[in-house]
């Protein structure tokens, strides 16, 4: 091939590349989502993407992991590479004032009944997860956070999250604050309480896979952990009692094309259907936002799920909005605390 021909071909190819979104705009064939990955991602595939593709013929490609930094980079660069972005409740409330997410079109989502906290202007809460206490089978079982923080009567090493917003509330509960009085949160008091047991905190974990592994390896005997990581583990016991439930949301990055957003709304609709949520819950022990889900879950695994009535009623909800406003100042205190460990 002569060079000029190649140039001609390349320019045709380039033109095709540039124009293809416009040509295909009448009908989106594929959308992309960024999600947390792992088992959770598989549950999205199984529970929601399969019925979505069956109904609409649109494929959905998953990518992971996501972070608030990634979303910000995507939106600020103007290159929107995903129509749906999974955000934790804290990240979502950070993303809204930064202008990183579009309002959802709830008329287009046309949701089936869902818990009120899962339906927000900018995010659909698709998955409940809890932060709970867990311990190695065989050690003295704690019944409250006061027990968890009592290292004299409950001797053993602890692991707690290296995220102040998944940790400090439990220190306050141990110090006698009642769940409805946690916010506004007294970070100094919480860190003082945490400081009392700092000799017994072996590890501050960042990855959800760490606490179950540390418990199994007998590196620690007690852990604050995400519920889905420890339920059903034969060597580990846990309780939802005084646990914190929280939501993961799906949002739409600002600047996504209208057609992709429309397709994304159809996928979000699938996430409100109880039957789909039950299928997702078979892959990972986290539950969707439908109040009707309870009836569809397998009886023998009932106690594993964060939102069945017996579990949800003994827990309390994370306050993402408070963390949005105060996260930065608490983080400074947290770093100071870590320096003194």
């Amino acid at each position, binding site marked *: 091939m002569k060079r000029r021909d190649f140039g001609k071909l390349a320019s045709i190819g380039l033109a095709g590349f540039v124009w293809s979104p416009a040509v295909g705009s009448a009908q989106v064939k594929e959308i992309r989502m960024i999600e947390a990955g792992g088992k959770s991602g598989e549950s999205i595939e199984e529970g929601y993407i399969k019925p979505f593709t069956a109904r609409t013929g649109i494929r959905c490609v998953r990518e992971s992991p996501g972070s608030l*930094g990634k979303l910000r980079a995507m939106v600020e660069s103007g290159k929107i590479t995903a129509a749906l972005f999974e955000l934790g409740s804290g990240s979502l409330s950070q993303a809204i004032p930064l202008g990183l997410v579009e309002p959802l079109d709830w008329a287009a989502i046309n949701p089936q009944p869902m818990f009120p906290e899962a339906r927000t202007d900018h995010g659909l809460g698709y998955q409940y997860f809890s932060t709970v206490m867990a311990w190695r089978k065989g050690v003295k079982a704690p019944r409250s956070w006061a027990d968890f923080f009592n290292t004299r009567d409950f001797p053993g090493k602890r692991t707690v999250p290296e995220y102040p917003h998944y940790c400090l509330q439990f220190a306050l509960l141990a110090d006698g604050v009642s769940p409805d009085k946690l916010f506004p949160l007294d970070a100094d008091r919480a860190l003082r309480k945490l400081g009392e047991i700092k000799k017994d905190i*072996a590890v501050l*974990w*960042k990855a959800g896979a760490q606490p179950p592994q540390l418990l199994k*390896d*007998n590196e620690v005997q007690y852990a604050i952990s995400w519920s889905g990581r420890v339920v059903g583990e034969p060597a580990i016991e846990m309780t939802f009692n005084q646990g914190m439930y929280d939501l993961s949301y799906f949002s739409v990055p600002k600047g996504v094309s209208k057609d992709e957003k429309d397709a994304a709304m159809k996928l979000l609709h699938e996430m409100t259907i109880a039957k789909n949520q039950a299928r997702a819950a078979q892959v990972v022990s986290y539950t969707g936002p439908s109040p009707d889900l309870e009836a569809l879950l397998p009886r023998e695994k009932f106690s594993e799920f964060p939102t069945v009535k017996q579990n949800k009623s003994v827990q309390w909800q994370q306050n993402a909005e408070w963390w949005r406003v105060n*996260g930065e100042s608490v983080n400074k205190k947290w770093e100071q605390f870590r320096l003194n460990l």
Partner: protein
Amino acid sequence: MNGLAFVAPLLLVMIGAFNAPILYMLALGFWSKAGGFTTAHYAAVFEASVYLKVLASTLRISLIATVANVLLGYPLAYWMSGLRPTGQLVAVALVITPFWISILVRTYAWIVVLGNAGLVNSSLLALGVITEPIRFLYNELGVTIGMANVLLPFLVLPLFAAMVRIDGRLLQAAASLGATPATIFWKVFFPLTVPALGAGALLVFILSLGFYITPAILGGNRVSMISNLLDKLINEIPRWEQASVISTLLLIVTLVIFALYRRLDRSAA
């Protein structure tokens, strides 16, 4: 002109993919939300002394790791330089091998070796040497061990190369003049390896400053280092402006250390 034409694509890639983003990152620290120049982000970082303390902690851990590396690496390189060629080949291969293994795998392997139920502790317990496991991990000791493991080749290889280049006749001359082996080592051999030792140690130190995985896993996140803080400021909170300020400070500290080294190096020569 012709030369430039050949270099131009690479130059453009370097400027576009590497230099421009760094300049953008530096500029971000002086950018206000309204779009003008501001020093507010710097003021905020200096006001919150804790971020500077994390920087100081990072420098301290890096220094410890560097000293550990020198104490391990110098004797190793010295021993290697005295081997016969085949022995040297095998030794170099053994030193380089860890480069082919992912840093994550190596870091987690230390948990298997040094954990409470790990190889070392269970052996010592079985032998009755200790009655309860030694805590190697989730403290500065664990971080130092992990960092020394990852960084050792960066020190040993340049040091080894410098040592085998030393003219053996110099040592023989010193011996013929009646110097003892210790004198020969300290007065002749060691000074000749100082430039390579300095360069290797500096390389190890600078690489240590950016460590993320090792302190997170082997330090159990109890050991504060700057990368972990930056990750938080970029991905979790997000305060990119403050992250930019801290990165800039880290860059300045690194450059100052580098300049000091250059000055020392020149005065030594």
